[in-house]
């Protein structure tokens, strides 16, 4: 435990490409970094039983999710000697084509950044108390399962 303050990862609604571009731009001062790996989750226009996905509405057990992410952050940063690690997940409604997940790892060399990013994606999908409700174009909805 490095004791850094708990960071919020939740963003209301979609994550904007401008926000992502700005985040990348700010890393030009991180001159120890030689490699950045980014994962973006985007709402896919899936077709299921003749319905088409229009959006996903996310909810979370926020306090628990932030505690879990914080523990995972510290483990992953040390394990891969990361320069930095940023995680953002949407809450509320995110429409088809919009971004709901943004993971950004930086390290001196590519292997650490790429491996860490992949591990964080798996963690977020499997371990984080977040739920997605899929909303179809006919307004019918059902709970997503990963």
């Amino acid at each position, binding site marked *: 435990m490095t004791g850094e303050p708990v960071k919020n990862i939740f963003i209301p609604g979609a994550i904007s490409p401008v926000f992502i571009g700005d985040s990348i731009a700010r890393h030009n001062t991180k001159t120890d970094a030689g490699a950045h790996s980014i994962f973006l*989750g985007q709402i896919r226009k899936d077709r299921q039983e003749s319905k088409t996905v229009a959006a996903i509405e*996310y*909810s*979370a*057990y926020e*306090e*628990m999710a932030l*505690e879990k992410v914080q523990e995972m952050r510290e483990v992953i940063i040390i394990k891969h000697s990361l320069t930095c690690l940023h995680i953002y*997940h949407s809450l509320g409604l995110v429409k088809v084509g919009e971004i*709901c*997940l943004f993971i950004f790892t930086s390290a001196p060399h590519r292997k650490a950044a790429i491996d860490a990013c992949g591990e964080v*994606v798996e963690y*977020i*999908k*499997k*371990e*984080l*108390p*977040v*739920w*997605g*409700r899929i909303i179809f174009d006919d307004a019918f909805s059902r*709970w*997503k*399962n*990963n």
Partner: protein
Amino acid sequence: MEITVKVFGQLAELLSSSQLEFEEVTDTDELIHQLQQKFPAFRSATYAIAVNKKMISGNTILYHGNTVALLPPFSGG
């Protein structure tokens, strides 16, 4: 004694509530039993349990002020 139960996702729909309060409940097994009595549909639900934001895997004694969370399968990202 006061126990807060937070309910998420499809379970919140099933129980028509996202938060419940319990007065007399000694452990998580008893809590689940009381919930099943009150909400028969809850019997067939799939969920994990967290006490004070930590996942538990077996029956766990509850103390005054504990928060129990009922967590259906995660589907973030």
